[in-house]
């Protein structure tokens, strides 16, 4: 009991309230500290993360549910990035500059948790120097969710709508402004010389209430109890063929998934006496070419096998590979599927919970 009270005391000591009208000033403060700041802005009725210049801090809008592009994946593993330049027999690695400080503001818990999963993949041996360099220079200002829509299902994986760790600063949208909680030394430094009043215990109560409300809005669910056994048992279920009739095979799910980490390495030959740029581009298991090997062999010739791979990787194989399920319930693959395939629906049907 004493310890719990103590923790609450410290939580209050490291919690502040940022008035709504102070958000642009705080954003400017971040930029003035030498960070490239990324934050959500409204674009054609949707929200998207954008680099925010000092003069555009007013455009930041933290009132959003989901961006199409997973923001942290896009920052840490850009959709297309140059890895090497080969010229006159010399190989030059094009690594990100470790001095480039990046701050991202307003990332929801599902996306922060997805990044923790990407971290497991990219810092597993062999470590990816490109990812690692960017991760080390990244400051995360997360944002607890105050609402959810019909695609959200983070509660199934404990990856939202609130966050307990993995952030430098954590915002919660309250009535009078944002509750700011500190999660790291870097975060503490950032609020250290920007005046904000300390939070009151009523602010923490309001935070709990906000999160409770957001939780109440989540309608979709994946029952993860014994999911590995169920998924493995369903590898030859006719559902995969049925889905292959609907799926367009476009790979949009792969692109918008915040934990899909595959890339294709491509060499492009430049005109100047044959120098070569080696780059990597996001890749996806829904593609024919993905499982193609020399002489045209292919391990997943049927679209059904590729859909099965996508769903099983998230809901089954990840657990053995990296010790966690590979889905955070962000809802992007459902929202962006032109064929309206719903992964929660697929799992529920395999569990016999739905017809």
């Amino acid at each position, binding site marked *: 009991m004493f310890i719990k009270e103590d923790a609450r005391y410290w939580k209050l000591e490291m919690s502040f309230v940022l008035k709504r009208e102070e958000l642009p000033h705080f954003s400017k403060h971040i930029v003035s500290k030498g960070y490239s700041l990324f934050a959500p802005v409204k*674009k*054609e*009725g*949707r929200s*998207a993360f954008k680099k925010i210049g000092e003069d555009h801090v007013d455009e930041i809008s933290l009132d959003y549910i989901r961006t*199409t*592009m997973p923001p942290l994946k*896009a920052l840490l593993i850009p*959709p*297309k990035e140059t890895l090497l330049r080969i010229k006159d027999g010399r190989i030059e690695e094009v690594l990100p500059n470790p001095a480039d400080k990046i701050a991202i503001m307003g990332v929801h818990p599902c996306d922060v948790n997805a990044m923790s999963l990407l971290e497991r993949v990219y810092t597993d041996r062999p470590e990816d120097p490109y990812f690692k360099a960017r991760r080390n220079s990244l400051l995360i200002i997360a944002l607890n969710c105050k609402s959810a829509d019909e695609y959200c299902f983070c509660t199934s994986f404990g990856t939202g709508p609130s966050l307990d760790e993995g952030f430098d600063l954590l915002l919660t949208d309250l009535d009078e402004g944002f509750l700011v909680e500190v999660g790291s030394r870097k975060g503490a430094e950032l609020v250290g010389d920007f005046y904000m009043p300390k939070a009151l215990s009523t602010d923490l109560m309001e935070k709990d209430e906000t999160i409770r409300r957001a939780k109440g809005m989540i309608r979709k669910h994946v029952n993860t109890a014994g999911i590995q056994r169920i998924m493995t048992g369903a590898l030859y279920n006719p559902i995969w063929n049925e889905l*292959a*009739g*609907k*799926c*367009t*095979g*476009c*790979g*949009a799910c*792969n*692109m*918008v998934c915040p934990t899909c980490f595959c890339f*294709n390495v*491509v*060499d*492009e*030959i*430049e*005109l*100047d006496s*044959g120098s070569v740029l080696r780059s990597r*581009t*996001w*890749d*996806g298991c829904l*593609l*024919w*070419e993905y499982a*193609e090997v020399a002489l045209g062999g292919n391990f997943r010739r049927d*679209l059904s096998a*590729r859909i099965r791979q996508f769903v099983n990787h998230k809901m089954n194989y990840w657990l053995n590979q990296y010790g966690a399920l590979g889905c955070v319930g962000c809802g992007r693959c459902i*929202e*962006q599927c*032109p*064929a*309206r395939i719903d992964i929660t629906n697929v799992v529920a049907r395999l569990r016999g919970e739905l017809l």
Partner: protein
Amino acid sequence: MVLVHLEESLLEVLKYAELKYFRMVSDDDLPNEPLDVAVVEGAVTNEEEAIMIKKIRRMSKFLVAAGACAVTGGLNAIKNISPEGEVESTVYSSPEHVRSGKAFGLNEYVNVDAYLYGCPIDRRELINTLMSLVMRVPPYIPGLTVCMECKMNGNECVFLTRGELCLGPVTVGGCSALCPSNGVACEGCRGVLKGTNPKGLELAWTNAEISPDLIRLKLRKYSDVYQVPAR
């Protein structure tokens, strides 16, 4: 013609290759000697062209089909579903001078070693293909969809947000999703990507209550998507 528009880059390519025949630029006849590489544009629509492409195939070590017409038959292939001569008589005042039957891509008649997709073809892909051949490595164009490149560009889906009939989900990428990135739905000029499912797209459109006639027109603009995929 993209080759001509390469301008200075073309001169760079010509450091490594000798141009033997280029009908769009010079009237010289097709030489009667072996070629390392033949880059052929256009669909095959009559017997003479079929004979010509077979001759070029025999002469060349490496054959590149360049552009939508050479890859799938292109826009010309719209007429393949109408009775012969019908389209010509609607378009031309004296159709009797037109010697053109069904339009097909080169691979209908000969083996093709590499493809340059799209209408027009992508400049970077052309350079990369030519330089790959100079360096004697097989040209490679990644087998991803326009839809994926569109997502990578951070666009919102024109189908899901505005209901536009976009062929991006089943179309060979490599154009950096040029059309949807400029707010216009993909017309599928680069042809259907192997492994994608046009039937799924048709179903998605049908479920969005698009009329079957409109769906058919869209799926047939750059050759019938239900034909053999472009790659």
